[in-house]
């Protein structure tokens, strides 16, 4: 008696589970049915199930009602003032293709400002971003460049002069101009003027050579020797702070 009851209970649960699965499958097809994409045997099976199943019929009615309500939802529209503003923007000046917005300043409201700062639909290239970065920070960039130039100039002027300057790379004494060479000089300059000009040129080149050598030394000292020394010193300092007192603590 008990076994028969259990068997019928299992059958009941199985049939119920099967019905639930069928209902779930049918309810998944509601949207397809409402879109009109359910045809043929599938449509017949769906309608047949809905005719028999109260729950699915209720669900279909709800979905249909909601679907109709969504279709009837109002469409929003913007104000005419906004459209007038846009038309004014477009009629005033053509926007430059790459970031020129000068003509729009007076027409821009809150949204106009947003339009410029917001994301572009296409990805901006690296160089465009770089140029935009420098454009945005132009005063800062100019200030930094001026300051750097000033620092370099001060360092060059204050640097100790090297006394044991090597031989200049150009001739110090220009040989006398021969008669043939003198004949080649235009009449506007005489030989003495040309000689003086060449001597000045030699002096200038010599000075440039010296400056160049000093700069090389300075850069080498600043960017190679000093960092190396600092690196070694800091390594030694770390080693000394680690508690091992036997190690050498000072610089090399």
């Amino acid at each position, binding site marked *: 008696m008990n076994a028969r009851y259990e068997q019928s209970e299992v059958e009941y649960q199985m049939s119920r589970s099967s019905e639930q699965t069928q209902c779930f499958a049918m309810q998944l097809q509601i949207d*397809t049915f409402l879109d009109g994409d359910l045809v043929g045997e599938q449509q017949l099976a769906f309608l047949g199930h809905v005719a028999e199943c109260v729950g699915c019929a209720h669900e279909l009615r709800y979905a249909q009602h909601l*679907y109709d309500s969504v279709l009837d*939802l109002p*469409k*929003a*529209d913007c104000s005419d003032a906004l459209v007038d503003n*846009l038309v004014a923007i477009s009629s005033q000046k053509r926007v430059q293709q790459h970031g020129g917005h000068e003509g729009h300043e007076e027409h821009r409201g809150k*949204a106009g400002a947003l*339009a410029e700062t917001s994301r572009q639909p296409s990805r901006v290239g690296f160089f465009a971003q770089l140029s935009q970065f420098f454009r945005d920070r132009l005063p800062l960039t100019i200030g930094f460049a001026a300051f750097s130039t000033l620092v370099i100039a001060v360092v060059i002027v204050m640097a100790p002069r090297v006394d044991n300057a090597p031989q200049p790379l150009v001739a110090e004494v220009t040989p006398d101009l021969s008669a043939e060479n003198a004949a080649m000089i235009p009449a506007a300059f005489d030989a003495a003027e040309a000689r003086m000009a060449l001597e000045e040129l030699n002096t200038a080149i010599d000075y440039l050579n010296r400056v160049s050598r000093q700069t090389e030394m300075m850069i080498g000292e600043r960017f190679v020797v000093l960092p190396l020394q600092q690196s070694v010193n800091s390594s030694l300092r770390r080693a000394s702070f680690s508690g091992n007192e036997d190690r050498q603590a000072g610089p090399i």
Partner: protein
Amino acid sequence: MHIEFQQAIEKHRQRVVTLARYRLRSAADADDIAQEVFVKLWQHWPKIDHDKQLPWLLRVTHNAIIDFVRRRKTRNESIDDAVDVEAQAAEQSQFEALEHNQLTASLTDAIRQLDEPFRSILVMRDVQGLSYADIEESLDMNASQLKVYLHRARRKLRADPQLRLRFEEINSSGDDAV
């Protein structure tokens, strides 16, 4: 070009604003989005494929809404909500008047609470009646993905307890009347 731009605004303004309006409570915010989108349209006018103008606009609108919401989240949300409520109270547009219908109001709220891309797809397809091709283009999806998302969006909408409650109320009042 200027005339064509004006025509494009007239043609698409409703679609752009509707898409924004079903995400943002404030009509002023939706107007801001629309202005931003149309300014971008003007800026990119020479580069746009005008056969695909609508998908381009929808895509830009979709991105602009996401940006807007992201920016707003970074601000103090409580202050912002208060502003929204005030703005909402002040607006007397047709949209708000229609929202007085309770089911419509619940439906609009439920749509606003959907996640992306479900909301955009539902608004574009069911509210605005746009073609699958335009939606696919604007959201960069294929047809099968789009249909799956649309069906899922509708199921999510049906699962909203407020909506179901409203429907049951309407249903029971209809039964009573019979």
